[in-house]
């Protein structure tokens, strides 16, 4: 380790400025509640001044604390200005409380560590057998589950026959023949509806669709002309001469 490093170690031994302050306070050899904050500030500032070479990142916190303590010292020495908040006496009291608090926890930690500790001073049983829980599983299923399962398997594996119900439809071919035949027998415009066969329901819907396509096809062939006044208005057909 080089020379400059060794100089910085002085501060690395402390766990921060509060730790250093606490150690200095204890060197006053009085109850922390009666520690002289002014004397403490003097000690701290002197300590920091003596350490000329500091590793910057380690020193920064100490220097900030030093600046604050220097401010506290001057505030404590000067006549009290009621306009200045917070009261320097109160700041000093808070610093003293912080030192007391850290000291108490440090002391508590030491007392904890000194207790009879399990595995170091007292021992649990070396080879506990452990307590055992024996689980007995009761399987549950109802008769309905059983037969429903079999039904499910049967339905799944049985050959499935698809039957399509017979439906009345008019094919495009039939519609073409019908429309072209009927349109020739009329002179004037006639609605598409008038070309549909009698009937209702599914057959009529099928006939309407097929007849519409037939009308389009005939128009394309130049055999009829189509007319519609507005969208969704009746569609008229007339044979072309």
């Amino acid at each position, binding site marked *: 380790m080089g020379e400059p490093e060794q100089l910085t170690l002085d501060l690395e031994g402390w766990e921060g400025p509060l730790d250093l302050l606490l150690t200095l306070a204890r060197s006053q050899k009085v109850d922390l509640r009666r520690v002289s904050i002014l004397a403490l500030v003097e000690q701290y500032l002197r300590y920091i001044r003596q350490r000329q070479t500091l590793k910057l990142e380690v020193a920064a916190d100490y220097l900030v604390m030093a600046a604050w303590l220097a401010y506290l010292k001057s505030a404590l020495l000067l006549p009290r200005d009621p306009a200045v908040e917070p009261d320097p006496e109160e700041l000093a009291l808070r610093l003293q409380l912080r030192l007391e608090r850290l000291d108490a926890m440090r002391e508590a930690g030491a007392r904890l560590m000194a207790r009879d500790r399990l595995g170091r001073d007292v021992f649990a049983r070396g*080879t506990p057998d452990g307590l055992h829980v024996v*689980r007995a599983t009761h399987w549950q299923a109802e008769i309905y589950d*059983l037969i429903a399962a079999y039904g*499910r*398997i049967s339905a*799944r594996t049985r050959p499935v026959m698809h039957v399509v119900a017979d439906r009345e439809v008019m094919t495009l071919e039939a519609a073409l023949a019908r429309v072209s035949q009927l349109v020739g027998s009329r002179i004037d415009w006639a609605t598409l509806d008038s070309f549909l066969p009698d009937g209702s329901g599914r057959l009529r819907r099928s006939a309407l669709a097929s007849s519409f396509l037939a009308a389009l096809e005939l128009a394309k062939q130049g055999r009829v002309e189509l007319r519609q006044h507005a969208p969704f208005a009746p569609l008229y057909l007339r044979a072309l001469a």
Partner: protein
Amino acid sequence: MSPPDDAVRAVEAILFAASGPIGIAAIRAHVGDVDVAAALARLEADYAGRGIVLVRRGDRWHFETAPDLAHVLRRDRDEVRRLSRAGIETLAIIAYHEPVTRAEIEAIRGVQISKGTLDVLMEAGWVRPAGRREVPGRPLTFATTPGFLAHFGLASRRDLPGIDDLRAAGLLDPVDVAPDEALEVETGTDSD
């Protein structure tokens, strides 16, 4: 009973904390020059009739729980569990087709069955091995048990509803074939 002296207490603590039965020489290595044998005799007497006893195993000694208390150290806990879908289907196939081989069950289900499925059914006491079929490979067959009939409240297997009964009850309705079943068939093995 007089309170134990320090030698007895030390031997007691050593026996308790030891990681196994321990001999007199090993005890003495801890406690030094005391009459270990006398301490052991005293402890044996102190613990007679307690829940912990001092026992000798060969040349070594240790504490153990009194043998008559073994039953309190283990605790039984009942768990009720529902049979999985694979389990109930396999059970149904065995019930309807017994005696039936594993290959036949898989052919009927259209899905492989895992070993655990049959194990669970046998553990439940509902299915038993029912001899081998005298065909090449001599596969094991499975059948249901009297416990199966008792659990499901059946006097005999003939009480199981037939296919026609199932159809009449709507249990063969193809609507019942849920999409996950198709998935199950594709993956080729059940989820047990």
